[in-house]
């Protein structure tokens, strides 16, 4: 019960708020539509959904930090100056 499809499904939940909302509304259906095994679908239905949401928010913040970090220094300074 640990497949590439399951990791891909989790990666999508962590990066796509619409996918996470669909999962929240219908966990079994979303897991089934992603082609996961019966055991994986069952495990996801029983999963720590609060933790999934918290992790998704945390990863989103990290991605935003990385994007900021990759900007040229003068862009970052202008952003700070004009609070963009």
């Amino acid at each position, binding site marked *: *019960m*640990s*497949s*590439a*499809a*399951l*990791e*891909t499904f*989790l*990666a*999508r939940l*962590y*990066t796509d708020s619409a996918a996470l909302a669909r999962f929240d509304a219908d966990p079994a259906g979303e897991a089934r539509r992603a082609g996961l095994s019966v*055991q*994986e679908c069952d*495990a*996801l239905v029983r*999963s*720590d959904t*609060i*933790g*999934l*949401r*918290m*992790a998704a928010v*945390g*990863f*989103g913040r*990290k*991605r935003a930090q*990385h994007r900021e970090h990759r900007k040229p220094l003068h862009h970052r300074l202008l952003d700070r100056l004009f609070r963009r």
Partner: protein
Amino acid sequence: MNRGDRVGIGWRAPLAASIYSHLDRIDLIELVADDHFRASRRQLRALRTLAGQVPMTLHGVTAGLASISPPEERRLARMARLVEAVQPVSWSEHLAFVRAGGIEIGHLAAPPRTEAGVEAASRNIRRAAMIVGAMPAMENIATLVDPPASTLDEARWVSGILEESGAPLLLDLHNLYANAVNFGTEPAVLLLRMPLHRVTTVHLSGGHWIPEPGSSGRQRLLDDHVHDVPPEVFALLTALAARAPQPLDVILERDGAFPAFPCLLAQLDAARAALAAGRRQAMQLREVA
């Protein structure tokens, strides 16, 4: 503190000048390897010079070696180039997956902890060791979510991977502490269930409590590297030093909200004191036995 223990700090650009001027109080430094994958030859020479002045370890963050899928070889090749150029005393990576199906998560995610995952991670680690030319120490990560579809608990999963791959453990004590308090385990109990004989390196850091969504009023501890090391984590370091007789390299990780440098030096001193207390406890236990 026994003769082999070393205490150091993660190299960060805003801290560079202060670290450099306090090398008499810093036994080793840790560089985030991925920040230097595109370094020029001149920059690599500068890193090699630095590694000649103070023991240096390289820390990778994007290989995703605990994925069910194989790691990207080009990333491992970059690590190999850096290790070859800088000649660190060791290198390390995380027990995490960071991408899947072409989706970049952007940070370290906990994969499902399963027997199949143990096998895949062990294979990935051995492959990384072959390409880089040295076995990485593997770090336990903090997670806000109990990894879905897991069939093993964290300690069994970590132990399985390290036994099968032969990798040493980089034990992040704040990650361990956060996972324990977030998922209802006593931190000291979780520590004792980890493969402590495999620990070569220790990370210390801090975090803060964040509320769970909804109206439960509950909180989870977020490992953020921008707060001081809490006393509970120093206590875990003492407990570790009492039970792991091998020399330990202890690294303080601080990524932001940098306090005045003496505050960081004080945390290094506290780590040394915690190690010494643990070593004393071990000696007393041996005397009693």
